[in-house]
């Protein structure tokens, strides 16, 4: 799909602007203001049923629906990609019910709704990023009782989380958590950064754009204001570190992006490509080229060749 803007031509008269009714939007908006005022604290909200199942971004969509206006431009990504089912459908949903233009370019968007990635391109102060959150409670795997988790947050009692990270070190020699890596927001609240890879955690710190988080099933909203301290938990002798790859992106040659492993055939052929599809496509358009390993090149040519034959 091209990165050009897809202008919505007509809206859907049967629904209120942006699907939600005005009373619901007002309730969510008040929660958003509280969330910004108390960075990292999970504000309970009256989650509504959305026209797609829990787990597909109902929380993020309710946040987006409450903030979006006719002069916004929306980008939606799913694991970094603009062209996967979840991203395409949410983008189409808002093009239909809010009549907003959509884009695949991070720079052109005023609102970016994301599932599990922070775009590689830098974001600006005048942009908002909305995360879809499956499980907002970072302590849940350690403490199933909501009432206990709430107390731990109230009294900043986060020893349990440090112990669980320490158990990783004792068992594996390192902190084995690679996604949903817990962070402290503004030195006060322990927060789940949603299942973004820990590669993206450092981007959240001192981020210029407003970050909003919506969890539909769990009915929680939280936020990180711009320029807020976000620190990944670690130990003095085991400092936080992000993933690294031995290869660069096979398509655009980027050395500093989050890479997905793509299996190409059943002969062991594989390649690593940028998870941020727009970033990768832009670099390729700018003339950057990656090095496909020989086996990957063969498998890739076979796959692409087959697809082109089908099209013809």
């Amino acid at each position, binding site marked *: 799909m091209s990165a050009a803007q897809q202008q919505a031509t007509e809206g859907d008269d049967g629904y209120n602007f942006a699907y939600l009714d*005005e009373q619901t939007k007002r309730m969510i908006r008040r929660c958003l203001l509280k969330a910004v*005022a*108390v960075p990292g604290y999970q504000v309970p909200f009256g989650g509504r049923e959305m026209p797609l199942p829990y787990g597909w971004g109902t929380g993020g969509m309710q946040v987006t629906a409450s903030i979006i206006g006719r002069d916004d431009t929306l980008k939606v990504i799913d694991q970094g990609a603009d062209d996967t089912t979840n991203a395409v459908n949410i983008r189409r949903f808002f093009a239909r019910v809010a009549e907003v233009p959509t884009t695949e370019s991070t720079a052109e968007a005023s609102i970016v709704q994301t599932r599990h990635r922070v775009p590689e391109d830098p974001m600006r102060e005048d942009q908002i990023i909305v995360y879809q959150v499956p499980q907002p409670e970072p302590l849940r795997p350690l403490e199933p009782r909501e009432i206990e988790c709430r107390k731990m947050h109230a009294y900043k009692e986060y020893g349990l989380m440090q112990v669980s990270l320490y158990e990783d070190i004792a068992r594996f020699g390192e902190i084995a958590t690679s996604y949903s890596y817990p962070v402290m927001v503004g030195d006060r609240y322990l927060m789940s950064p949603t299942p973004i890879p820990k590669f993206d955690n450092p981007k959240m710190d001192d981020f210029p754009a*407003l970050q909003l988080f919506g969890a539909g099933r769990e009915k929680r909203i939280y936020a990180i*204001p711009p*320029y807020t301290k976000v620190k990944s938990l670690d130990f003095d002798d085991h400092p936080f570190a992000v993933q690294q790859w031995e290869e660069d992106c096979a398509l655009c040659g980027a050395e500093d992006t989050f890479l997905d492993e793509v299996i190409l055939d059943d002969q062991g052929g594989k390649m690593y490509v940028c998870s941020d599809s727009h970033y990768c496509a832009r670099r390729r358009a700018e003339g950057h080229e990656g090095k496909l390993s020989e086996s990957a090149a063969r498998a890739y040519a076979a796959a692409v060749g087959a697809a082109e034959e089908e099209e013809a």
Partner: protein
Amino acid sequence: MALATSLNASGGIDTAELRPGLADPVHDSQHIFRGLLTALAHPGRPVTLPGDVAGPEPLDPATTAVALTLLDYDTPLWIDWIADTPPLRAYLKFHCGCPLVERSQDAAFGLVTDPENMPRLALFAQGRDQYPDSSASLLLQVPSLEEGPAVTLKGPGIRETATIRPAGLPDWFWNDWRLNAAQFPLGVDIFFTCGRSVVGLPRSILAEG
């Protein structure tokens, strides 16, 4: 809870005298909300609110816009005695439907048009340990956002520091704010309004006079 004093003989609201609300409730309130979100995410930065709406005396357009955007039957409102007039009560009752409360502690929102004589910040709901979101938000309409004494702000949303100059605040105000910020995550959040502008001051912000 006080009964609206603006009821006419038949028990309804005198709609002939009523000022209009937002011209386009859906899109105007969205616009205004985004302004408020920007104001709270960038504390100290004045934001001009769209939707030029003329509410009843003594409300400025920005104060009216915030009220029309955030208030409804879920948000008990406390208003100070200067603003507490029959036309204003009728206006809020008709456009927002928010219950008006006598005790500031019971309010989700406080509307102050005479900040010099406002109650101390601790007299509004501060939130609870486990639910800091249950605190009050205050709309403080000030005579000027530029002519008061300079106050330096620091905290989330501010890159280095920000300076605001709201006028007409009582002399205990910034001391109270220090106490408010010290009990973070509890405490009230404030929107200063004047004319068509709003400045956000969330509880997470430290202020130095």
